[in-house]
């Protein structure tokens, strides 16, 4: 079922069925979108619930100015950024730097099974400022185009390219990136 068909199903009155289709189609992909940004399985799970609650509440007024994918990714990215901002405040209150927080998150994560190089990458990503982290994850892990990321974030392609460049430079100090 395409996104357009799901929307038609929703507007025809079969709302729960249409929503179930969206969950089936996008829940795992959204998990993979949020997880590298947030770094914790439990936090990702919490955020996904918030995302889909907002999707359910927002569907009646969804105007199709962007596609469903872009809209849902925008909701998820904003939820993740909001979460990361609050987490940064909590870390600051503990006098913990971004690097220290990144180390702690990755080393204590029971659901990370990458090799040493991937562990270094995960820590380097977790140490990035939140917006740079979001852009890097979308470009590097999800391989979205800058145009797609621009639609999701509402930022210009030029600004995104610059952000990605700076994020990559920081990460390359510790890790070899696959281009």
């Amino acid at each position, binding site marked *: 079922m395409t996104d357009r068909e799901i929307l038609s199903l929703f507007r025809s009155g079969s709302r729960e069925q249409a929503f179930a289709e969206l969950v089936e189609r996008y829940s795992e992909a959204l998990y993979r979108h949020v997880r590298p940004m947030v770094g914790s399985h439990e936090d990702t799970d919490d955020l996904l*619930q918030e995302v889909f609650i907002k999707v359910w509440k927002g569907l009646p007024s969804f105007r199709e100015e962007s596609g469903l994918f872009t809209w849902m990714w925008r909701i998820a990215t904003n939820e993740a950024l909001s979460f990361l901002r609050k987490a940064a405040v909590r870390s600051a209150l503990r006098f913990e730097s971004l690097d220290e927080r990144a180390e702690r998150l990755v080393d204590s994560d029971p659901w990370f099974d*990458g090799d040493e190089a991937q562990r270094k990458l995960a820590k380097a990503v977790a140490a990035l400022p939140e917006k740079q982290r979001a852009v890097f994850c979308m470009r590097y892990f999800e391989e979205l185009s800058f145009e797609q990321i621009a639609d999701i974030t509402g930022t210009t392609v030029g600004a995104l390219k610059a952000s990605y460049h700076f994020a990559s430079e920081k990460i390359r100090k510790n890790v070899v990136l696959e281009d």
Partner: protein
Amino acid sequence: MRKEFSYTTPEGYFDELRTRLGRIPAVLQAQEEENAQSQTAAQQPVFEPQPRERRPVFARLAPYIALAATFLVAVVIGNFILSRSTRQDVVSSSDEEIIEYLIESGTTVSQIEEYLSYNNNTNDQ
């Protein structure tokens, strides 16, 4: 380095996630119905007001009449007290005190002499 997703999940996690997310519409709807019931209950009065009995005219005016009578009595008593205090004789002042006052108030010597002359004539009568 491999560009792959290095994060794992508990076994069966995504199936359980889809089931849980699929319950969102039902859960939110139940919450809305509960909120609507709470609001309806809050708008109803706690008790029904009793219908008021119609009282006779005099009974309704009695408090105001009592208030007016109290005010009238207070005015009469006040007037009585004030009138008694004004009829008391003014404490007479000696000539010296009067002259001293007149001098302090800038009265001229001729005016003082005129006063004294008048006063003496009055006393003689």
